[in-house]
């Protein structure tokens, strides 16, 4: 009878002792993550990835920049600069099958949509042959022409655009 009782209790005792062993190895609770660091010097910080936030701190991300969409031609800053796109181009299909940009900016349609036509150079092959449609080497518009966002520049600079320089020269 007694032997039976011991035999019945044995697994319980074993389980209890195992549990006691387990508690010894339990990990100490981890430190709660510190509050996210708010980036305040977005415009001056040259480190674009961490923005000067220490590696052991979490940064609260800056709001995403928005694409400028005002449809007015921006001045060109230097000679031969590809003009920037003054409107949103979200989901415009620019693939091997179709080119949404050329719907309005092709020479034949530009007037109808009041869009600036692409320059004549875009219709030339590398051998100087004039084509009817845009040359394949100019096909991928966003390789040179890009949208602009309202993001603050990462570093201050004293670059003066072509127009500013010309205006100064005229004054002198």
């Amino acid at each position, binding site marked *: 009878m007694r032997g039976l009782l011991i035999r019945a209790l044995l697994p319980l005792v074993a389980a209890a002792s195992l549990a006691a062993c387990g508690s010894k190895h339990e990990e100490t609770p981890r430190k709660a993550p510190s509050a996210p660091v708010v980036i305040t010097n977005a415009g001056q910080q040259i480190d674009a990835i961490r923005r000067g936030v220490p590696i052991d701190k979490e940064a609260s991300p800056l709001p995403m920049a928005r694409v400028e969409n005002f449809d007015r031609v921006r001045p060109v800053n230097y000679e031969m600069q590809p003009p920037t796109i003054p409107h949103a181009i979200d989901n415009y299909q620019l693939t*091997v099958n*179709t080119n949404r940009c050329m719907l309005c900016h092709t020479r034949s349609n530009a007037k109808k949509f009041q869009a600036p036509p692409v320059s004549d150079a875009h219709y030339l092959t590398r051998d100087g042959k004039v084509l009817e449609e845009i040359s394949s080497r100019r096909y991928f518009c966003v390789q040179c022409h890009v949208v602009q966002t309202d993001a603050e520049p990462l570093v201050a600079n004293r670059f003066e655009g072509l127009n500013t320089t010309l205006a100064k020269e005229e004054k002198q």
Partner: protein
Amino acid sequence: MIGGRLRTIWLRVWGWIKPFWTTVWRPSLHFSMGFLTLGGFIAGIIFWGGFNTAMEATNTEAFCTSCHEMNDNVFAELKTTIHYNNRSGVRAVCSDCHVPHNWTDKMGRKMQASKEVWGKIFGSIESREKFLDKRLELAKHEWARLKANDSLECRNCHQYDSMDLTRQSPRAGQIHQQYLGTGQKTCIDCHKGIAHHLPNMKGIPQG
């Protein structure tokens, strides 16, 4: 000779039909007039409701994307567009653009869609390559349909009278006023490929 053969065929067919015909034609022996009238009425409701429910079931996105042809090609493409993912969370499912809302037109479209069941069975677009090869033809069908009904499925949600042109970007507002407002163009004339990738558009006017 042929007349005689036709006659024997008809007699044999009539032999199959006759028992059913006499049963249907004879006045009811066991059921009252009221039971048959009311029963017919209730059965009619159940049938009609069931029919429309089944029809609606084939209008759901889950039904359309249950085929890999739709799920892997056109539905995957839709996910990146504004008709799936946007600031306000209002979105269109397949049938909003591809099935007319008006009942008779919807039935017509559903009958046309039996061709798609045929295509599914015989695997006419079962691989990505086959789909891309056929894409221009399929797209042309949809453009023709939307052109013919003056982009009705677009206009079910986008009504010109309710568009605030001042809240559109200047070029969009101006072009909508000039071409859509005057009825010169309809939505699909300029907005091809709004929800899916385009096939090779060489020679196809887009604006």
